[in-house]
């Protein structure tokens, strides 16, 4: 089992390398950092621009492969290079990574737990009103793009706050820098509410649909009946035997769902004015910032592959048939 996971881990590491390299190549060939220096008044001499770009490893006159080698050897030692105007990508990333991870982690956990719970409940109540309500709700949410959803949420909160006359739920920013101590902590939590909702609603809808199907498959299985025949209550049998077994397939979707989550995070950060990795990606594309784009891409691929590794772990933990072989 340990060897199996180790092998999966090695494959994942190679995949991260390939994904990051491709992302760098794409950014380096299509973006034009020179543009930022060319249109200036007074004009900057070409030699000066070249020298600056060379220093940041952004000069389009250097062959792309050579730039890639420079970039890659930096990345291997932990140096992600410079931004378009000479700032350190590492420093910027250090500031932003925690912001994004907090959002992604909470969003994923909330989405998975609530989605699986709603799906299982919906299956048990098949064709009842609550099942239909959850079903319709899920499809409506899945049909709304995350940026529309986030905007709608922000507008609704704004009107709510105005109606109440004070700010019940924060709808912009990450925290209030004027506060300190516990106040600061609760303020951070308050700021988290809206982005978390907008980010996890999609995955709640997604997981609930999957889990409902899995659960329905399992509900008619003989072993649930056996559990009740032993003398377990229906609720216990459903929870301990049915849901436990039906969780296995949902865990494999974990990796896939994480990709959508990253996309969602980009919009959510932008809309709620969080300075995370997603917002940075949008900004750096606007600024033709090759190294920053490459760094965010690397971060994203790392996240996806960690998620897939976690889903392997989860499946192995849940399913003895995988573990024993």
């Amino acid at each position, binding site marked *: 089992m340990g060897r199996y996971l180790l092998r999966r881990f090695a494959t994942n590491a190679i995949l991260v390398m390939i994904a990051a390299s491709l992302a760098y190549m794409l950014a380096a060939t299509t973006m034009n950092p020179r543009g930022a220096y060319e249109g200036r008044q007074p004009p900057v001499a070409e030699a000066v621009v070249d020298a600056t770009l060379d220093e940041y490893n952004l000069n389009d006159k250097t062959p792309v492969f050579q730039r890639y080698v420079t970039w890659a050897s930096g990345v291997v030692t932990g140096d992600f290079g410079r931004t378009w105007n000479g700032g350190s990508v590492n420093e910027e990333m250090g500031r932003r990574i925690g912001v994004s991870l907090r959002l992604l982690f909470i969003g994923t956990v909330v989405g998975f737990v609530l989605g699986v719970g709603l799906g299982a409940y919906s299956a048990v109540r098949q064709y009842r009103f609550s099942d239909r309500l959850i079903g319709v709700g899920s499809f409506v949410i899945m049909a709304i793009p995350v940026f529309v959803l986030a905007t709608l949420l922000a507008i609704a909160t704004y009107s709510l706050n105005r109606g109440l006359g004070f700010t019940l739920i924060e709808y912009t920013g990450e925290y209030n820098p004027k506060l300190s101590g516990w106040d600061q902590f609760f303020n951070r939590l308050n700021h988290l509410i809206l982005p978390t909702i907008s980010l996890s609603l999609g995955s709640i809808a997604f997981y609930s649909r999957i889990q409902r199907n899995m659960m329905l498959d399992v509900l008619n299985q003989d*072993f649930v009946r056996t559990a009740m025949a*032993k003398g377990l209550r229906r609720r216990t049998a459903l929870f301990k035997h049915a849901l436990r077994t039906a969780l296995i397939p949902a865990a494999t979707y974990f990796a896939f769902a994480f990709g959508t989550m990253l996309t969602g995070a980009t919009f959510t950060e932008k809309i709620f004015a969080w300075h995370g990795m997603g917002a940075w990606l949008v900004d750096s594309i606007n600024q033709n910032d090759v190294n920053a784009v490459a760094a965010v891409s690397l971060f994203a691929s790392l996240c996806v592959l960690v998620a897939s590794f976690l889903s392997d772990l989860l499946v192995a933990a849940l399913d003895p048939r995988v573990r024993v072989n």
Partner: protein
Amino acid sequence: MSILEVRDLTVTFPGDIQAVRGVSYEVSRGEVLGIVGESGSGKSVTSLAVMGLLPQNAEVSGSVMLHGQELVGVDESELTRVRGKSISMIFQDPLSAFTPVYTIGDQIAEAVRVHQKLGKDKAAQRAVELLDLVGIPHPNVRAKAFPHEFSGGMRQRAMIAMAIANDPDLLICDEPTTALDVTIQAQVLEVLKTAQRETGAGIVMITHDLGVIAGMADRVLVMYAGKPVEQGAVDDIYYRPRMPYTMGLLASIPRIDGAEGPLVPIEGTPPSPAALPPGCPFAPRCPMRIDVCEEEEPPLVAIGGGRQVACLRSNEIEYKGLTGEDVFPVPDIPPSEVVRVPRDERATVLELTDLVRHFPLMKGAVFKRRVGTVHAVDGISFDIAEGETLALVGESGCGKTTTLQQIMQLAAPQSGRVVVLGRDSAQLDRSARKALRADLQIVFQDPMAALDPRMPVGDIIAEPLRAHGHTNVKGRVAELLELVGLAPEYAARYPQHFSGGQRQRIGIARALALDPKLLVLDEPVSALDVSIQAGVVNLLEELKNTLGLSYLFVAHDLAVVRHLADRVAVMYLGRIAEIGAVENVYDRPAHPYTQALLSAIPLPDPEMERTRKRILLEGDLPSPADPPSGCRFRTRCPKFARLGEAERQRCVDEEPRVDRLANAVDHGAACHYAEQIEVIPASEDQEEK
């Protein structure tokens, strides 16, 4: 005193589907009540209703009294106190009846802890004891195994262990051995008897297998269309049935003890529970019906001797001493022309010589490497003469299906030779192979899965004709439908409109479309109910005789084989253990495996079942990836166990070949110490001959 008393139990599902319509019975301590009936007769629903395990949309009325306590309509907490404690249930399919993600030991311990205040380790200890009781070797190790690591027979033993964990007063067994092979079935039935002795519980045994009931039950309840139609002591029901349905059911079973002549089929199919006929539900299929039968449903009335019958003409049946053979029309099957020619002078339609099929056992996800070999078929030889039926029998995993696949592929085998109608399969080119396929057709086991649900029946049958470029397809389809006993108008309907037996007939019509010479039948009747099965078996026999077909018949039901086959080959772990004419192999089996197999089959005859001695085999089939050296059967062989040290050595070192037995024309066995013995008691009708 009775433990369980069921009164007027009815179960209705949404859409006014009356699955159970008034069932009453009692079970006393230590008594075994057998409930028989075909699929859809309501026998399983009845027992689930007793347990309160039906889906919530089922409407249950009537009364179920357990030790005088009412169970119908009580709330869940009262039911959970009874379930698994006073009443336990054993389900049909032991694979799906265990939760795949918990160990067997944990699941049994859970059953213990639900009802007894025991610590975790004490309960685990008790689980190990229970596994030991039901005969699981190394119970303390096996308790930590997951369900998928158990074989089918072992799982059913574990299921029994779980059911008796709390010393129940009543065990409900719902088709407990239907999913198992015969030798394993014999083991499990023994375990069930042990369990009953240990707990002194009453047993409700639900099954469609009249042989199992004959050996186990004290009393029998026969169900039809959701209602009991006859009830009484086991001997009365089997020897003196008073209701035409019971009579037909008993007459339709093929007998392993060699009664000849066509089987007695019951025409038609059971009524749908959503659309019951107004009178007696059996009337449309009953040859004894009179006008009154179609007007009013006859009630179940006591006729003395603790018996109850629901038939208006039961007195007449008793008075005249009628049996199923007297009442039901027996079809007349014309004899075969071909068999008059001696076997040696007939052409050989199929010949296998040392056929081998090994599958590599691979490991690894990206870089696969070979870690072993599954010896699925390991050198088998047999031949089929024109107009002959050879049956290939054996338990799951013995290589029957692989052999079929190798023949049907019409390609060069890994080793050995397959000669179909005089043509070596290794030397066929594409067009010759296609042409030969017309002469070699197959009928599949599952008639539900073998027909495309989105294709009209006419097109299904026409497909092989079109593929081989025939014209006048329509006329031929009509002809074929008539040949298998279906109306030509059915060509426009879809498979879903047909019952299982009718679908199997459609499958046979498709196989016959191209006028084949050799038909491969892969368990053609094992998915059908007995009364339907008889009709299909008769049809196969008739077709063989009138069309001069040869059959290669694969089956695990040895009674059907005896009825249909001329010769039989018994397979064990990829090898042939015994081969020969049916009379020779069945009446004087020489290989210890054949002897055990035949003795394991329950006979639908209570008297014989009680007096019969069984040869029980130990353990499960060894893995075909690692077959024992020498004789493959020696690890389970009762004879090997009795041999002296020097004699045993030969079994370990030398693999026996199929040798012809000295005193028989067509009988060979692969055993160093072959010795013919009789294991099936001869039936009366054979003694008369």
